């Protein structure tokens, strides 16, 4: 809406009066509430600035003045009897009146301006009580300079402390991981020993503990198992301590982070208490030898109990025909002799460990028919390139989990005839490049294969499975293509 239309040019308190201009020139906030003020703040374009009605009036005045100036003399003797001369006299009187009124108005304006300028701004004049109060409200008191800005800025003295916390926590976590690795090694070592012990029990038909003790190899195996069990148990104490320490340090770190984040805007945060707590915790969780010492309280298992457990295992185990060859190959591999390793049929734990520790870049274990999860886990530690297990017909989900956690590039599983969903579910996360599954006849979850291939993996599949995988690929792409078509 054009404000000029709404405002009569001759309104008594029109906004375009000079006095009003002076009063409101520094109060732009008021303008939105009155249409009058809009006239000043929102100056219309030059050609629209003047009210059309005013333009019309002024035009009329100009015309009349022009007519008077040209057609009629300003001073003319009025003849009372002549209507024409009376008209002229009336007009000249009007003109006189206009001049007089204009002069008076100008005079009045000058007087008002002079008086207005003289009086109000003088410092001698006391301001109204209310005005004083408003003046006394210091703007600085609500200045944004004083407003706290809650940015999570760590005070410099805390940066070092936080780093120290982080360093100590990393130290504890690294140590805890070392302890866990140690425990894993001991556990694997126990399993290896148990495997050997079961073989001994079977081979020598050991019926009872006294018979077992007559075989020093058996006795040593039992003692080693007991010793390793003690190590595992003893490591629990430092491991618990390390985990507790890392958790408490993490809690402190997080607590500090939260409090430092609100420190600028909150009161009641006792940073000294934080500092004291931090120092105390850092001192308490210094990983010294005494803190990491293994616990020795646990009573060691009796050798007889261990033997009974192994004898039970032996009763349920059938030694394969290739057992002696496999055992011999395992010994060779562990001695660094790799010429016969690919002839192994049953991958014993000891052989798996030695293969995983070998420097070979390719392992061809195509005679292996079964892959227990523990063996798969050990093989997954092998830092090689290409692992061939083409003799496997099935793979357990747990073994698949370990296999697809291997850091190598290429796996050949061409003997696999089926791939259950709970096994293939681990495939999409595998970081390898190529997998051969040329023997597959059935895949429960094609989408797992597709996802891995979509991520850049290369799959070698029999024709039928390839068709299923390609169809799944197309089905996945179709909605995208149709969506693009719609957009196009």
């Amino acid at each position, binding site marked *: 809406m054009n404000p000029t239309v709404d405002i009569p040019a001759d309104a008594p308190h029109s906004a375009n009066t000079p006095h009003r201009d002076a009063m409101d020139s520094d109060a732009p906030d008021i303008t939105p*509430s009155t249409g009058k003020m809009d006239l000043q703040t929102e100056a219309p374009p030059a050609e629209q600035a003047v009210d059309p009605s005013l333009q019309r009036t002024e035009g009329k005045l100009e015309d009349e003045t022009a007519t008077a100036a040209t057609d009629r003399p300003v001073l003319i003797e009025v003849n009372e009897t002549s209507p024409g001369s009376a008209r002229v006299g009336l007009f000249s009187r009007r003109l006189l009146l206009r001049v007089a009124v204009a002069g*008076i108005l100008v005079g*009045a304006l000058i007087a008002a301006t002079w*008086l207005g300028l003289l009086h109000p701004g003088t410092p001698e004049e006391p301001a109204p009580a*209310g005005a004083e109060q408003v003046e006394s409200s210091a703007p600085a008191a609500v200045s944004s300079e004083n407003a706290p800005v809650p940015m999570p800025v760590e005070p410099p003295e805390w940066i070092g402390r936080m780093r120290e916390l982080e360093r100590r926590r990393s130290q504890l976590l690294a140590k805890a991981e070392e302890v866990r690795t140690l425990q894993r090694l001991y556990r694997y070592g126990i399993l290896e020993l148990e495997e050997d012990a079961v073989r001994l029990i079977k081979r020598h038909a050991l019926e009872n503990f006294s018979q077992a003790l007559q075989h020093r190899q058996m006795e040593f195996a039992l003692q080693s198992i007991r010793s390793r069990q003690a190590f595992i148990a003893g490591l629990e104490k430092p491991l618990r301590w390390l985990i507790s320490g890392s958790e408490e340090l993490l809690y402190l770190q997080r607590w500090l982070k939260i409090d430092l984040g609100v420190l600028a805007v909150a009161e009641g945060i006792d940073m000294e208490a934080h500092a004291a707590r931090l120092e105390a915790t850092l001192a308490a969780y210094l990983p010294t030898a005494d803190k990491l010492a293994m616990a020795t309280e646990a009573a060691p298992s009796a050798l007889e109990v261990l033997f009974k457990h192994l004898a039970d295992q032996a009763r349920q185990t059938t030694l394969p025909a290739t057992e002696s060859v496999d055992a011999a190959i395992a010994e060779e591999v562990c001695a660094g002799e790799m010429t016969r390793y690919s002839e192994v049929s049953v991958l014993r734990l000891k052989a798996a460990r030695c293969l995983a520790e070998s420097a070979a870049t390719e392992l061809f274990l195509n005679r292996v028919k079964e892959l227990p999860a523990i063996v798969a886990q050990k093989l997954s530690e092998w830092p090689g390139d290409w692992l061939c297990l083409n003799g496997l017909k099935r793979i357990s989900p747990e073994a698949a989990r370990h296999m697809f956690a291997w850091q190598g590039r290429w796996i050949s599983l061409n003997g696999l005839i089926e791939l259950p969903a709970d096994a293939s579910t681990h495939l999409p996360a595998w970081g390898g490049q190529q997998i051969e599954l040329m023997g597959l006849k059935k895949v429960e979850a094609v989408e797992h294969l597709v996802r891995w291939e979509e991520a850049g993996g290369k799959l070698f599949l029999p024709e039928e499975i390839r068709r299923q995988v390609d169809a799944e690929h197309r089905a996945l792409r179709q909605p995208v293509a149709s969506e693009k078509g719609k957009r196009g």
Partner: protein
Amino acid sequence: MRISAERIRRTAAWALSLMVWCGVAAPVQASDRPKVEALQRGLSHMAEARRVLSEQVASAAALSQRLHAQRSELQVEIARERRVQGVGSFPQALRVERIGYNLRLVQRIDGYLERIERRIGYFRTLDHALEFNMRGAQDELLALNTLEDRDIAELTSRIQSVLDEVARETTKPLFNASDPPSRTLELVWNELPRTP
């Protein structure tokens, strides 16, 4: 000619009365000018106070958002630990260090969030008060321009009072972190969703 002289006399009389009016009116308006200026200053201060309040609310909201994000991370971690460790009850939860510590942190953050929200609400109320007083001042300014005199003492006193409150409150800490938490750990645990 007589009529003309009469007209001139009338005009002169009218002009004289206009001059007299100007002579009287100008000092009257001049005496209101400090009130106008006081109200304008008040308006200016209130506008500034509202700006400061708005900044404070924005900062508090940003802080609240950050704390909410931290809380969410802790909550996700609790849910994960709960699933992995098979935790069902509250006593079991306390036995898992990560859950126990995270619950304490969530409890602390919840306390901070409650106080920040309360503070934001208070700032909004202050802002409403300022808005109300600005409206009053603007109305009064309009009236002052029309009427000869107005008593603005009550209004200016009210404005001053709100400005003082804003000045005082915006320089105070946003909240007190040492206030005890309003909810127990068990309540925090019970209210957490079981899935992240």
